[in-house]
């Protein structure tokens, strides 16, 4: 039950984009089309899940026994960058259709601070392995949900009659702020 609460909290209450303001670059840059938003969101789930598990294992199996905890930041950055390169290579070689759908978003994810945040959070909150797995799926799932909602709003904004000075990113940021306010109503849900 606690894991379910944790999942709901990570998706709705402590949403990474709307409460921590992380991952704003893809949130604004890749939210104009629904198909792009879904592709980016799925790729982020895959990369965060894989990179978090590897980071978790490296921290507890290598860094802690060798008393090198102070190297966790550089370790996690290199793990994320290496994992993205590896995933891109494998997808290129074995699944061209998947590469066509997700490949273009993989390099963008390397610079997505959400990935590093989740890897760090799993360590600083001292999560167990099962909690790490749940958190590594829930946080990017929240990112995907918000990205899809935001893409739907932006698609409708394209045909809306709005003042010239608000077109583009200004109205998108107003919508993001309104979404953040709406999501704050979930506080206290679990």
């Amino acid at each position, binding site marked *: 039950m606690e894991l379910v609460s944790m999942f709901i909290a990570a998706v709705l209450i402590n949403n990474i984009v709307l409460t921590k303001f992380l991952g*704003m*670059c893809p949130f604004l840059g890749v939210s104009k*089309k629904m198909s792009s938003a879904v592709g980016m969101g799925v790729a982020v789930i895959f990369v965060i899940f894989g990179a978090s598990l590897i980071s978790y294992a490296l921290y507890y199996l290598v860094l802690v026994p060798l*008393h090198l905890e102070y190297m966790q930041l550089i370790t996690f950055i290199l793990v994320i960058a290496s994992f993205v390169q590896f995933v891109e290579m494998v997808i290129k070689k074995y699944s*061209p259709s998947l590469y066509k759908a997700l*490949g273009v978003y993989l390099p*963008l994810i390397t*610079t997505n601070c959400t990935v590093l945040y989740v890897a760090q959070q799993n360590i600083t909150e001292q999560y167990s392995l099962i909690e790490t797995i749940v958190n590594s799926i829930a946080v990017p799932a929240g990112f995907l949900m918000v990205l899809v909602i935001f893409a739907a709003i932006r698609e409708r904004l394209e045909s809306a009659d709005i003042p010239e000075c608000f077109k583009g990113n200004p109205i998108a940021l107003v919508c993001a702020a309104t979404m953040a306010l709406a999501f704050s109503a979930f506080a206290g849900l679990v």
Partner: protein
Amino acid sequence: MQVFYAILFGVVLGGIYAGLYYMNHKTPVPKGCENLKADCEGCKVTSCEMHPSHNIKETNHD
């Protein structure tokens, strides 16, 4: 000894990244995916490789 382990660990991780980067760039891109581009409109981070400013061709003003 701890410093030695730290340096060794950093070098190993850096080496793994460099190796994977090299192998990834050596892997041929599948047919039909040569000119894939993200629909990123660009934020204000001009150092990002996806920023549209990198696609502007230099023009000769003379």
